[in-house]
């Protein structure tokens, strides 16, 4: 279950359209349309199955079930679920890609000093 429980983070519903820069210090679930930039630093971003994000994303972890057009920079991990459609470069320590996910772009695994990068699965 990727949708946050009540009180566990911000939720952008599927009828919401946002243009601009989003930043925050809590987890974010996007099931609507976001265009611009998303910066969550130490928190996670989940793009829901109805989500359509056209933005460069920076977060601790990123889970994508919907559509994302832009670069993804995750300090911890990226999960591309089977319905994910991603166009852009991904930079992270670990990446998991489900069968059926679509990625068009570069994957650059940045290994943290002293740690091995986790595998794509």
């Amino acid at each position, binding site marked *: 279950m990727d949708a946050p429980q009540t009180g566990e983070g911000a939720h952008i519903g599927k009828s919401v359209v946002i243009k601009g820069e989003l930043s925050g210090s809590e987890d974010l679930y996007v099931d609507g349309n976001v265009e611009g930039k998303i910066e969550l630093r130490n928190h996670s971003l989940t793009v829901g199955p109805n989500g359509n994000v056209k933005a460069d994303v920076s977060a601790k972890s990123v889970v994508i079930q919907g559509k994302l057009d832009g670069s993804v920079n995750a300090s911890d991990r990226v999960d591309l679920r089977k319905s994910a459609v991603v166009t852009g470069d991904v930079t992270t320590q670990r*990446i*998991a*890609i*489900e*069968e059926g*996910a*679509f*990625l*068009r*772009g*570069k*994957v*650059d*695994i940045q*290994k943290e000093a002293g740690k091995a*990068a986790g*595998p*794509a*699965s």
Partner: protein
Amino acid sequence: MKFFRSSSNRTAAPAVPQKLTRRSSGMGEISRLLNSEEGLCVLDLGSTSASNIRFFTDKGHKNYSEDLLHSSLDAALRIQDVAGNWVVDSKTFMEENLVYENAQFDVVLCWNLPDYMEESLVKPTIDRLWSIMKPGGYLLTFFHTRDAGPDSICYRYHVTGTDVLEMQEVKFAPPGRPASDKRSPRLQRVFNNRHIENLFRDFASIKFFLARDAIREVLVVR
């Protein structure tokens, strides 16, 4: 060169997608390069594959994915020529795909792309690959032999070992068809060796590996 234009009856595909494996001499040679050098740029032109991304990034290389066959089937690329025939807009295709800096890639994995891609896109694609590859870079591609029929299954390839590829049937919705109407792309033609050599004539060298499964592996050095 043998072209396949007419349709033919197909047998029903199995309900569960089958995954077969094959030994790949070409992949073995590329693996030796990947194991001996660091920070290489690898361009995978097949369907997004977690296995491939893991294989390359675990070795410290950068993996670029671009599913060129899928992109070539975009209905928006279909235009009518002056005679009213439906053709693929190769100019737009090349403007929207393989857009990279010159001499960027050390390794390009073409897989079986030239055999299944629309005829008008093959030469421009190979020319573009020449431009975006580094001198000395490796390109691996597979060509069917004359023993293959037009209904030869189109596979995607997952690298599961140094010279082992897992093969999985590819299915796409043809242009203009609903997304649910997925079919295996048809083999467009069979290149003979002379056509293959002409296709890659600007490259420095070309090496053929023959296999038992009606496939010729071709390893080309830029």
